[in-house]
């Protein structure tokens, strides 16, 4: 069943405007830091998305900032009411993505909006696109900040859509990190590089919002089919001009080319998802460009990684947490929910559980840290079913009162990590070594019942009739809230 969703960013921009969540900026803005600074401030203030109509040096191009940096925008993208709560959005996401995958369909090239303009050869020049200098001090202009890269396995039909940042190096070259445990990293470094074969790629900029959500999601379902599940309808794809990859037909800009197996060049620094510039400038994966196709008056999407909350933090937290929820439920663990705080820059996950047996928190941590997604989970906080996992105050209270500072904390060393951890030392970053920790915020089951502390809250220590009376008379006591 199709949901009320948007086939492209243009429809989504109109929906944000209709929901008073868009600021259309008519005055010219500079791609060199000004645009980035605006988007950064938007993320930090949780302001409406900026829609830039005039970009200095680039007449005819537009830009759209912070497209999905709030739950409100995510709810709108999902076709839900704008004030849907996080649990409501989460449950809807799980419902839609638990059924059968929805196969994408092909669109005739002549009808595909992303083919309205085609540059090949010398004309396919990255500096003809308004790649922003996002933060002062970045290693270059990052054309790809809210986008995804399409790549295909060398031996199978497996296709990956993933967000791998790309810095413009020169007219024909982009460069960026491809971590070896990522889907694209496994294909490229595991198969193409040993055979010294270039890997075809297509970078999709300005896709519909749910394709972006899917590209962030760590689901085993192919991302185009996952997008179809979120939309309730097939995604329309079109074949690239210079390789056999398929891309969303309604996207704004497609950059086609090859990932080179025999050379690396320096990339970074860059303001990263953790809110710091952490990973070193070092030789990284090289993309050479063969063609650029784009819609008339293309709209470049601009995300700005930094301190919370940007769309990378929000959506990765959202989808990582929910994929972990699916995994834990599939194992029969009596969880009450999983929530990853966006403010944790998807490092801390809160798992609510009915403490049915001893050691349940360790079992949860072992599953989380033993999963494919392990490097993105550095801290697991397990709380009991009395704690609202979505309520930061309650989670902090549980962490500080139920987690024993020695017995409640278990460390996991020698884990896979990333070079992006700000807390890691330079050697750990160099070798992508991680460490993880469990905070067990459940009271041990072997304590005598009479020894278990009783939570002192309005809901817990007053008889129901007293609670009802106080609630009924609240306003008449003189309270205004």
């Amino acid at each position, binding site marked *: 069943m199709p949901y009320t969703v948007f086939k492209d960013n243009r429809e989504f921009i109109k929906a944000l405007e209709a929901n008073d969540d868009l600021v259309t900026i008519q005055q010219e803005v500079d791609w*060199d830091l000004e645009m980035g600074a605006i988007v950064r401030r938007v993320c930090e203030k949780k302001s409406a998305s900026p829609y830039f109509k005039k970009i200095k*040096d*680039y007449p005819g191009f537009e830009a759209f900032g912070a497209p999905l940096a709030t739950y409100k925008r995510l709810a709108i993208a999902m076709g839900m009411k704008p004030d849907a709560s996080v649990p409501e959005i989460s449950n809807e996401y799980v419902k839609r993505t638990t059924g059968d995958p929805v196969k994408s369909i092909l669109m005739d090239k002549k009808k595909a909006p992303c083919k309205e303009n085609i540059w090949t050869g010398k004309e396919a020049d990255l*500096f*003809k696109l308004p790649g922003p*200098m996002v*933060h*002062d*001090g*970045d*290693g*270059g*202009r990052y054309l790809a900040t809210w986008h995804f890269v399409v790549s295909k396995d060398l031996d199978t039909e497996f296709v990956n859509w993933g967000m791998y940042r790309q810095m*413009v*190096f*020169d*007219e*024909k*070259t982009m460069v960026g990190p491809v971590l070896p445990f990522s889907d694209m990293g496994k294909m490229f470094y595991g198969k193409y590089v040993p055979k010294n074969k270039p890997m075809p790629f297509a970078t999709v900029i300005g896709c519909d919002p749910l394709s972006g959500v899917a590209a962030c999601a760590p689901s085993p379902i192919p991302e185009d089919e996952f997008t179809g599940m979120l939309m309730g309808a097939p995604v329309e794809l079109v074949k690239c001009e210079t390789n056999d990859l398929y891309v969303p037909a309604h996207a704004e800009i497609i950059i086609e080319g090859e990932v*080179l197996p025999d*050379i690396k*060049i*320096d990339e970074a*620094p860059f303001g990263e998802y953790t809110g710091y*510039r*952490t990973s*070193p*400038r070092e030789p990284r994966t090289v993309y*050479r460009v063969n063609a650029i196709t784009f819609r008339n008056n293309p709209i470049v999407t601009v995300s700005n990684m930094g301190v919370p909350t940007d769309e990378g933090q929000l959506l990765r937290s959202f989808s990582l947490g929910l994929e972990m929820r699916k995994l834990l439920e599939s194992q029969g663990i009596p969880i009450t929910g999983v929530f990853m705080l966006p403010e944790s820059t998807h490092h801390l996950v809160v798992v609510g559980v009915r403490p049915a047996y001893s050691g349940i928190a360790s079992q949860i941590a072992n599953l989380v840290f033993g999963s494919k997604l392990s490097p993105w989970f550095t801290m697991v906080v397990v709380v009991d079913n009395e704690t609202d996992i979505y309520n930061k105050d309650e989670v902090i209270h549980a962490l500080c009162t139920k987690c024993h500072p020695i017995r409640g904390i278990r460390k996991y060393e020698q884990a896979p990590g990333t070079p992006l951890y700000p807390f890691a030392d330079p050697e750990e970053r160099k070798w992508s070594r991680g460490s993880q920790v469990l905070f067990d915020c459940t009271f041990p089951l072997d304590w005598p019942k009479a020894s278990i502390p009783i939570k002192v809250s309005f809901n817990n220590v007053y008889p129901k009739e007293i609670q009802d009376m106080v609630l009924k008379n609240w306003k008449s006591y003189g309270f205004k809230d």
Partner: protein
Amino acid sequence: MAKKEYDTFILIELSQVPEDKEMEIIVRDLTPEDRRYKYRSFYATAMISKSESKYPDRLWVRLGRGQLQEKPWSVKILKEVNKFSY
């Protein structure tokens, strides 16, 4: 003619950077004729000096996390080096 300006990222101790010797570095063009090409990177054979006036063009120095150093150096770009076969 106004000096051209470039910048480069230095990933070793600044005191260890060799001066007045031909070496290969990556620089970014900060003053291209067509502003759309600002920050274009390229490999270059170049000579550098910590003196701002020794070589014809200005070279701004950034450290590994992007920290801009207060005083510029100078650079003489001898040639651009193409690292790609196509």
